[in-house]
């Protein structure tokens, strides 16, 4: 069972900064293995989820179609070929934005209005009853996605309060899921697609909802989407700047000022650090693993735990089973980008208006810069001495920037062979045949 809690920050459920009441997740952490340094690849849900399913970094750009259009088969196909019945309950927008996976159930998507308060939780639970073993079940609640919708009577809560409240509600839902399944026979993987900047000063749901209902729909009809998107981001930046005057600390400014959707702000740990938990079938409890891992490691790990040989090549993800068993697994750099490289996202997000970023994160350093120009918007943070990413040391440590750039280049260039390679022409086939005959091979 793959549980993806959209927009869940890693620090909310584990560690010193844990603020929420989440007893079910706590109990799973005590039974399973929690990865406290898990990293996602992007801030876009569909792009991240596609990366998880194909166990590849979101490389390439939309122009060259290196990402999903020529991608290797999904690792989900291996589960299917081994007799697994697949089901999912995922918000329809995730499919509209480019997630290409197909599942056996017809009621796979839910509408954006649906949430755990008005029936989504029951729907998720009910689906379990109809699953026939062996099954793979992927659920993706969006209740932590801003604006963090809550019942009307709780609409007065601030964003940060709604966020924590909904974590508690989802935790309760997971508790009810656990009552329906046998953990000895079921592997549970819990993660999120990305984090979020949850501003403590952002107001009640009533305020934002009233604007949304009364004004936004009318504006949407009158103004072209591209202009609207640009205006939206400009507005977000302006509001952010005003809020950010409240503090001098960069990491606090980010929380106050930034939005995940701002491409030039999306690769800080607030967004790319995610929770990752394995519990149940095949997993014995060990202390949380601090080594950096990626969420594209999820499927290779699932396959190994289920005893399914991974026959799909050209993946970046690695099985984390050695770490689950307390053994060593060398750490590798993790690629991340704030650029939309899925075609469907490209159509809805005007990428050339904003400064897309690309970078890598290692155990010790975070490095990112403009996608188009390695000299622009260069950031380097020493995560050992500066885990909150307050001091950009790019100018002080050109040696490390160079090293990171080389490492990034190696991953970036790891493109897939084109799936629609040109066929050989008859003359070429004739030449090869003659050569192979002459060499004694035919």
């Amino acid at each position, binding site marked *: 069972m793959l549980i993806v809690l959209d927009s869940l920050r890693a620090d909310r459920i584990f560690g010193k900064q844990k603020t929420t009441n989440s007893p079910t997740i706590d109990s799973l952490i005590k039974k399973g293995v929690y990865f406290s340094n898990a990293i996602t690849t992007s801030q876009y849900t569909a792009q991240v989820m596609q990366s998880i399913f194909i166990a590849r970094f979101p490389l390439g750009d939309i122009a060259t179609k290196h990402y999903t259009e020529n991608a290797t088969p999904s690792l989900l196909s291996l589960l299917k070929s081994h007799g697994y019945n697949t089901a999912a309950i995922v918000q329809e927008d995730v499919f509209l934005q480019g997630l290409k996976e197909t599942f056996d159930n017809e009621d796979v998507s839910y509408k954006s209005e649906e949430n755990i308060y008005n029936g989504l939780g029951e729907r998720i639970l009910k689906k379990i009853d109809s699953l026939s073993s062996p099954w793979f079940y992927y659920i993706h609640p969006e209740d932590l996605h801003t604006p963090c919708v809550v019942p009307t009577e709780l609409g007065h809560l601030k964003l940060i309060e709604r966020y924590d409240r909904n974590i508690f509600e989802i935790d309760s839902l997971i508790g009810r899921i656990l009552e329906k399944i046998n953990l000895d026979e079921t592997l549970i993987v819990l993660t999120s697609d990305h984090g979020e900047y949850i501003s403590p000063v952002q107001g009640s749901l009533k305020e934002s909802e009233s604007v949304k209902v009364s004004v936004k729909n009318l504006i949407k009809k009158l103004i072209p989407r591209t202009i609207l998107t640009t205006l939206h981001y400009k507005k977000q930046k302006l509001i952010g700047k005003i809020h950010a005057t409240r503090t001098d600390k960069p990491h606090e400014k980010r929380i106050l000022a930034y939005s995940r959707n701002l491409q030039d702000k999306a690769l800080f740990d607030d967004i790319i650090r995610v929770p990752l938990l394995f519990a149940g079938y095949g997993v014995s409890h060990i202390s949380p693993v601090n080594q950096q891992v990626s969420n594209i490691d999820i499927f290779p790990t699932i396959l190994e735990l289920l005893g399914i040989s991974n026959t799909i*090549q*050209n993946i970046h993800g690695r099985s984390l089973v050695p770490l689950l068993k307390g053994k060593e697994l060398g750490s590798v750099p993790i690629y991340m980008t704030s650029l939309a490289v899925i075609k469907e996202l490209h159509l809805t997000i005007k990428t050339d208006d904003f400064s897309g970023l690309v970078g890598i994160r290692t155990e010790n350093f975070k490095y990112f810069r403009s996608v188009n120009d390695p000299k622009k918007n260069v950031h380097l943070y020493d995560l050992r001495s500066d885990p909150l990413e307050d001091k950009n040391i790019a100018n002080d440590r050109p040696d490390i920037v160079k090293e990171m*750039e*080389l490492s990034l*280049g*190696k991953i970036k*260039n*790891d*493109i897939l*062979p084109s799936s629609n*390679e*040109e066929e*050989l022409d008859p003359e*070429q086939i004739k*030449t*090869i045949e003659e*050569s*192979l005959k*002459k*060499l*004694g*091979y035919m």
Partner: protein
Amino acid sequence: MRKNLIILMIDGGRFDWANKSSFFQSIKVNSVSFSQSITYSPHTIAAMHAVFSGCYGTRTGTNSYWSTYKFRKDKFKTISEYLHDLCYYTCADIVNELVIPKQGLDEFLIHDEMKDDLTERHMNLLQQMKSKNNKNQNFFLYLQYSNIHTGIMNEVLKVYNNFSKEYFDNREKNEKRYDFLFHNAEIYLQAILKKIKELELDKNSTILIMSDHGISVGEKIGERAYGAFCYDYTLRTFAYFLLPGVSPKEITQQVRTIDFIPTLLAYMVIINVVNHYSH
């Protein structure tokens, strides 16, 4: 002036035969040798495209006997191109046009393995390179010794199939055949190295002596020569780097033949290819 690069490629040279050869031992004590260098593919086309590009054929497109024309020359830069860009004169003499990438080669020579005297031919090429070098022209020379292949082609490939009882029942005969062919390769190599020394090219050239893959002498039914299986008798190759200024050393750690070109480029202080498409 930069160093020249000479690659002497003994097609079908087995590591274990080299390891027990007194002649190869004499090369080993004067070189940096790799006793566990693993080729990408047990046949020349895919193996040498991988070496030239520093990248596996799964990426470059050349991953079989049939995929020379699928080499993605727009994406993968070869050693010949790197050196050609630096004004090296680049020359290769090979058994067939399919076996290495053409890109970046000034001279792309094909020899007739049935007729040509490779020793004489290659000594002439060395002489020509020396003339260029005397005019301050750096060069890259790639020489394929193909006569082990020639012998195997005539006496094994054309005579037996991968399941011929007669072949697999006569291991001793197979080994003797290979002994003879390998010994001829030693004689060739001895003459070429002597010529290199005579021309004093050993003083200003980086020299790599390597094999692309090994050849079966009947170990496994189903593979009378190579290209069918992935056992060490075809995948484990020999590699001796004669590097002016570097002390002789045997490196026993497993390495990949696709590491050779990035290593040479770095050693020759030409470029660190880590940021390109290399593996």
